């Protein structure tokens, strides 16, 4: 919320609060003074109503008593007692009563009722004539009233006592008259001279007059009620609520005025004089009384609180009006005051708000008093803050660029530009070279230069040319501040050019790395004395950051270079590896090809063995099938033998198939397929294939194939080829031997490392130890018709399986070839280990 608003609101609130307090005080004071009086007034009024009502009936009471003594009444009563005719007295009495009724409109009926005749009316004057005219009722219309309650009550009275009946609606012949006439009977007995009761005087009072008065006695908004002892309404603002007990739908005041009726009950019956009760909360006053010593009645007056409180409210209202007016005036005054007070403040606020704007909003520095002082203080603070802020921003931007710039030149350029953006006239960065001239080479520059730096031909050598601030800065590694260029003695050479370009003051800051000062950051301002202590401190930080950034950029560059070299090296390595791999694959393919060719060649040499291997089962098949035919042709046919022969046919057919499959496998040109295999099996198959060769050359083959050999991982065909080559070699090596048995021994056994070693030993001619190293060379052969590939291929196959094929001289004669293949389990572990590595 704005200050002026707050000020205005405060003043208005003050005024409103004051007015409200005065208004409240007045209101409650008035209220306290008025209320008791108001209630006393109402009580008085009610009391008077009650008394008026009672009195209006009191007249009839007196009338009843006074009528006893009139002559005519006495005469009529006397005649009744004596049984003599009363002659003219009735007429006399009638005339008298007519005048009486005429003068008292509230008298409804006047009667003299005999007692001895069982309550028959003796004289009756009422208003039953045409249009309510008063008349003496003819004797024929006189009624028997012995059963009426007033009769019953009155005959029990002592002389001089008067009975006043409860208020009822008038009836005629037992029916309630309409329009309703509330009335009350006043009855008094007439005693004869013999002391016996002779007659009753009964005056029926029409209460419409009294009730009318009662109704009319209340002012605006007030309500008045009359109730009997049972609480039935006799008078009610709503006439339909009246006389409910007579009309069959009783309406009782207890529901409407429970509190005040409760008070009556607790205080007992009313005396003859009305007794008032008050319920201030509801504005109700009740006056209880006996109606002319007769029935208990109560007048209830209800005044609306508003009516009672009216004076107090009037006071409150006037207070409110005064308050509002006062508040309005106060608000107007406060607005004016707040405006004049806050205008300079607002100006200051706006200046603060627009702190970042350029140009800044003017401050009311010429304002008087404290505000003026505040504005001036603020202005100086703002200027300082603006400068510091600018410098900080410069530093931050410098640092941001420091991080992002890829190399030192860009970085230095960015810092220079940031400086100029930050309000300096020119900034440059130079490196002090370690050359002969100790030259300073500008590497970055920004701002108003116009060839200034380039034309300086700066040097940091300790010469006259090197006496400027930049040179000193590099030489000494300290900050050089020139407060006023036009007058500074060290600016000899450059002063003119500097002034031309509007440089008023300058600062040169050293750029340092771990080894010392390597350059300078120079900053020029168009203001003299621009570089105060704080600015120097901050700019030095920029210089330090720049130096750090340059060093970091150099490191980065070096690292990038190293990385690039490493990457190239890795790439070369990868290419080499790829080439090696390709070479290895090609070699493998070539080797496989060669192995295949060699295998086929070897197999060609084995045709005799192969034919034998195939012909054996074929012969068995042929013989068996012939045999079975013959067994069947016998008489009787020998089925058992025939069946046996046929079973053997099937078995041998399978055998022939297996042989063919094996041979085909050996002849097929396949890429090596590594799988777990049983070397003993593979060897046995090879031996079967070379059987003919063994026998032809009279070679005895001895095998010692270790049971429980672990499976090895390898290509079955290639490993069989190795065995085949070695077996054939051995057989051939022994072909010339005549002086000793030709024995080819084949052993397999598990090596310590878990691999399987195969040893093939012959008793042949052996080999010349001198050629031993060349035995495995390709195209090296000691045989006349040998190709010289067998051993070379065998070795390459074994090595491709990760094994080694070696040869050594036999114990006495011949040669021993050994090769080992790692077991499938060991190979798997090794692979895993390799993967892990």
């Amino acid at each position, binding site marked *: 919320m704005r200050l002026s608003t707050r000020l205005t609101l405060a003043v208005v609130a003050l005024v409103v609060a004051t007015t409200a307090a005065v208004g409240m005080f007045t209101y409650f004071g008035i209220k306290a003074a008025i209320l008791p009086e108001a209630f006393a007034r109402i009580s008085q009024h009610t009391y008077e109503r009650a008394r008026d009502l009672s009195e209006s009936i009191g007249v009839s009471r007196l009338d009843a008593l006074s009528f006893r003594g009139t002559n005519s009444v006495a005469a009529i009563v006397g005649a009744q007692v004596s049984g003599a005719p009363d002659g003219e007295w009735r007429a006399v009495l009638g005339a008298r009563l007519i005048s009486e009724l005429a003068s008292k409109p509230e008298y409804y009926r006047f009667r003299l009722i005999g007692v001895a005749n069982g309550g028959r009316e003796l004289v009756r004057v009422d208003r039953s004539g045409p249009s309510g005219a008063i008349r003496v009722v003819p004797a024929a219309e006189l009624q028997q009233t012995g059963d009426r309650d007033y009769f019953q009550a009155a005959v029990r009275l002592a002389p001089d006592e008067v009975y006043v009946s409860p208020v009822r609606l008038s009836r005629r012949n037992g029916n309630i008259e309409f329009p309703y006439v509330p009335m009350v009977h006043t009855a008094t007995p007439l005693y004869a001279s013999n002391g016996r009761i002779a007659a009753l005087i009964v005056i029926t009072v029409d209460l419409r007059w009294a009730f009318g008065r009662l109704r009319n006695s209340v002012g605006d908004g007030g309500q008045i009620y009359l109730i009997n002892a049972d609480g039935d309404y006799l008078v009610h603002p709503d006439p339909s609520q009246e006389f409910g007990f007579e009309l069959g739908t009783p309406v009782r005041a207890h529901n409407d005025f429970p509190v005040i009726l409760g008070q009556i009950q607790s205080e007992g019956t009313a005396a003859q004089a009305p007794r008032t009760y008050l319920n201030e909360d509801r504005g109700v006053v009740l006056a209880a009384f006996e109606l002319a010593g007769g029935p208990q009645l109560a007048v209830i007056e209800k005044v609306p609180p508003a009516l009672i409180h009216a004076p107090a409210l009037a006071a409150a209202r006037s207070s409110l009006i005064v308050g509002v007016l006062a508040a309005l005036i106060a608000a107007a005054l406060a607005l004016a005051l707040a405006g004049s007070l806050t205008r300079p403040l607002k100006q200051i606020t706006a200046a603060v708000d627009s702190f970042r704007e350029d140009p800044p909003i003017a401050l009311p520095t010429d304002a008087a008093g404290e505000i003026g002082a505040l504005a001036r203080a603020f202005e100086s603070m703002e200027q300082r803050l603006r400068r510091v802020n600018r410098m900080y921003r410069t530093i931050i931007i410098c640092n941001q660029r420091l991080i992002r710039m890829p190399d030192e030149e860009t970085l230095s350029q960015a810092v220079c530009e940031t400086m100029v953006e930050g309000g300096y006239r020119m900034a440059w960065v130079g490196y002090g070279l370690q050359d002969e001239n100790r030259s300073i080479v500008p590497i970055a520059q920004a701002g108003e230069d116009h060839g200034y730096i380039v034309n300086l031909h700066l040097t940091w050598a300790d010469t006259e040319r090197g006496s400027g601030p930049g040179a000193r800065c590099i030489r000494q590694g300290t900050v050089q501040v020139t407060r006023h260029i036009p007058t500074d003695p060290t600016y000899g050479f450059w002063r003119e050019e500097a002034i031309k370009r509007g440089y008023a003051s300058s600062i040169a800051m050293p750029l340092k790395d771990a080894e010392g000062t390597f350059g300078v950051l120079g900053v020029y301002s168009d203001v003299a004395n621009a570089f105060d202590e704080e600015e120097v401190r901050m700019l030095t930080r920029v210089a330090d950051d720049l130096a750090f950034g340059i060093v970091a950029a150099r490191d980065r560059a070096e690292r990038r270079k190293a990385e690039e070299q490493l990457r190239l090296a890795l790439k070369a390595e990868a290419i080499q590896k790829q080439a090696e791999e390709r070479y290895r694959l090609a070699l493998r393919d070539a080797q496989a090809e060669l192995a295949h060719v060699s295998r086929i060649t070897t197999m060609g040499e084995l045709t005799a063995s192969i034919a034998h291997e195939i012909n054996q089962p074929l012969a068995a098949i*042929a013989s068996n099938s012939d045999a079975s035919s013959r067994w069947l042709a016998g008489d009787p046919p020998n089925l058992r033998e025939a069946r046996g022969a046929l079973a053997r046919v099937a078995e041998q057919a399978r055998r022939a198939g297996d042989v063919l499959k094996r041979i085909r496998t050996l002849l097929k040109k396949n890429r090596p397929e590594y799988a777990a295999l049983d070397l003993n099996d593979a060897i046995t198959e090879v031996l079967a294939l070379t059987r003919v060769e063994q026998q032809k050359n009279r070679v005895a083959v001895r095998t010692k194939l270790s049971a429980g050999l672990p499976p090895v991982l390898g290509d079955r065909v290639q490993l069989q080829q190795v065995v085949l080559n070695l077996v054939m070699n051995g057989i051939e090596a022994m072909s010339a031997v005549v002086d000793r048995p030709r024995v080819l021994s084949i052993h397999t056994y598990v090596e310590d490392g878990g691999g399987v070693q195969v040893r093939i030993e012959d008793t042949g001619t052996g080999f010349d130890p001198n050629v031993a190293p060349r035995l495995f060379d390709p195209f090296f052969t000691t045989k006349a018709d040998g190709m010289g590939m067998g051993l070379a291929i065998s070795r390459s196959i074994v090595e491709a399986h990760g094994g080694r094929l070696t040869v050594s001289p036999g114990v006495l004669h011949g040669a021993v070839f050994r090769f080992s293949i790692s077991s499938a389990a060991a190979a798997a572990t090794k692979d895993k280990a390799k993967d892990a590595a």
Partner: protein
Amino acid sequence: MKDTTPTVIVVDDDPAVREALRSLLQSVGLKVVLFGSVAEFLRAKLPDGPSCLVLDIRLPGQSGLDLQDELAKADIHLPVIFITGHADVPMSVRAMKAGAVEFLTKPFRDQELLDAIQLAIGRDRTQREEDTAVAELRQRHQSLTAREKEVLALVVTGRRNKQIAGDLGVSEITVKVHRGNLVRKMGARSLAELVRMADRLGTSRATS
């Protein structure tokens, strides 16, 4: 000689082939004896009756051809039928030269084998009869005196008595006596028969 059912001796290292041959040969009512190797065969007793040898050429250790040679050396005239899974020409030539009845290449037709066996057994039977005759002849020959043997040897070469006497340095009469004795002892009815006898003896001697 008591058991006249011919016996066929089979030597083959392949049990399947052996079993097949057993079945085949038994089906035609021949008696069969099976051996897996030469050594096994040599350890066994040869049957008395007419028999023949069905021999696989390629056998572990000694080959069929070796056995053939050995039998000949031992003067055992058992007719041999060679069966082989793979034969080359030199091998068959050698076998046939050494007197093999037949050289069959596996797989062969049963009838070929059976015919060969029939032939071999016939030959054996003849051989056996021949052997018996030669043995008797030799017995007769053994009954001759040394001088009579000398005279016989010269007679069958066609020398006349006078020449013989000259050769031996005895009288012609002595030669005639010896000649008469030896003809009687030998039971020859004519000079021609005597020559034939000497021939048979000589043959057998030469080969022993």
